[in-house]
């Protein structure tokens, strides 16, 4: 979600873009993450997948689809909007809310949060606060497509599609078919 805002600005300044993952790479990474989640938790029965809007939700749905195929039963994916829990609300004009949809009671379940890019960790901190008020999960895990480093909080991902070392001036753009009509991860700006 955040990465795409960056991208819009980077596009307008004609920054050079370097594609680091194509659709095949994304597909393979998601398949691997799906299996890693199942392997770690052994069973899909106590799992709740929650994507963080907007791109995290689409990733969560894709992972849920793959998981349903593997497990042979329907596994739902939800969405968790974290806007109201952000620590930077006062720095910008109020922004629109995204949709929150919790497919199942989260008490005693293993919740897997899914986002596109892990950066400062502040989004995940907000998501943990939001979860706290929805119930008491047995455990919370984090899956991200891209980990680009530069954490500002003691947060790490349990499942990572690709570690992408970046500098702070660079921007990571994740494009997904559902929104952007193509699957790709690109780095923009910097000395590319």
């Amino acid at each position: 979600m955040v990465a795409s805002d960056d991208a819009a600005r980077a596009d307008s300044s004609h920054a050079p873009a370097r594609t680091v993952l194509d659709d095949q790479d994304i597909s393979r990474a998601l398949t691997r993450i799906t299996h890693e989640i199942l392997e770690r938790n052994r069973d899909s029965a106590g799992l709740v997948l929650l994507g963080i809007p907007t791109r995290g939700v689409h990733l969560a749905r894709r992972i849920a689809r793959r998981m349903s195929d593997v497990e042979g039963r329907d596994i739902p994916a939800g969405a968790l909007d974290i806007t109201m829990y952000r620590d930077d609300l006062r720095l910008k004009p109020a922004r629109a809310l995204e949709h929150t949809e919790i497919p199942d009671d989260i008490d005693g379940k293993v919740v897997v949060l899914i986002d596109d890019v892990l950066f400062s960790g502040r989004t995940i901190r907000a998501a943990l606060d939001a979860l706290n008020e929805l119930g008491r999960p047995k455990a919370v895990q984090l899956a991200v497509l891209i980990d680009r480093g530069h954490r500002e909080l003691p947060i790490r991902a349990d499942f990572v599609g690709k570690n992408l070392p970046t500098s702070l001036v660079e921007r990571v753009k994740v494009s997904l078919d559902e929104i952007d009509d193509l699957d790709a991860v690109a780095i923009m700006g910097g000395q590319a």
Partner: protein
Amino acid sequence: MIKNLLSAGDLDRTDAIRILDTAEELLGVASRPIKKLPTLRGRTVVNLFFEDSTRTRISFEAAAKRLSADVINFSAKGSSVSKGESLKDTALTLQAMGADAVIIRHHSSGAPHRLAQAKWTNGAVINAGDGTHEHPTQALLDAFTMRRHLAKDGDGSLTGKNVTIVGDVLHSRVVRSNVLLLETLGANVTIVAPPTLLPVGIDHWPVETSYDLDSSLEKADVVMMLRVQAERMNASYFPSAREYSRRYGLDTARLNRLPDHAIVMHPGPMNRGMEITADVADHVRSVIVEQVTNGVAVRMAVLYLLLGGAADETTTDEATTDKDRA
């Protein structure tokens, strides 16, 4: 987004739809185990009520508390206002206490406007009903309720919906705000009232008017009954309560002539047996109780959009970098 909410006419289509969409998301908070969001923590909201109110004051209070704001309730009765304190001095007192938002209901039309324009307070001013002028959050919650029932999958507006508003238009601030907002959202409004209860200048409103309720029932998607405001009636506007209710009251026979999908609304408080019969008020197609529930969500949305972000929009640029990194 605007800084104060003084009139439903201040909202353009984008802002109005944004408030309604935000309310849609916030409605879910009421069904959570913990009905609270941390968003307005540390902010102070003052309910400044110079006129009696149950649902609006409680609704604003619930909305502010669900967003974790601190709420100070002020009612004119039992305050220094009864000793003769002016609106200005009351406002300055509240400002000195650090109010981030002032929700004002006043018996004089224009009081919220004066409060906002005179800079007696730095906080956002939200009009919760002024005289016979406007009541914008009521219009928003009405539009929200209509949208949930009639235009769930649309573009967020109420384009082409027929709304019939019946009753004491002359004294109603609800109707003035509703007409402005419904026009912005693209609905067609028909106003039905006895000639004595239509205000001067209604020809300039973007509405159709009629003296006959029965003729506008068949095509109505929404029928909104207005309260006969006995406390503002200092002249005889109609011969008798019975005649009014016979000609302009909504009873079961009239309800049955509405289209199957049509809903019945009333901003409350109702005079059962006057403008609406008890059967109709409690009918499944009456959404009057739901309007109250939706009121909290809509007022949360208004408070969030007015107070949740940066107080000063000039800080936006410096903040961009921070946001990108979140």
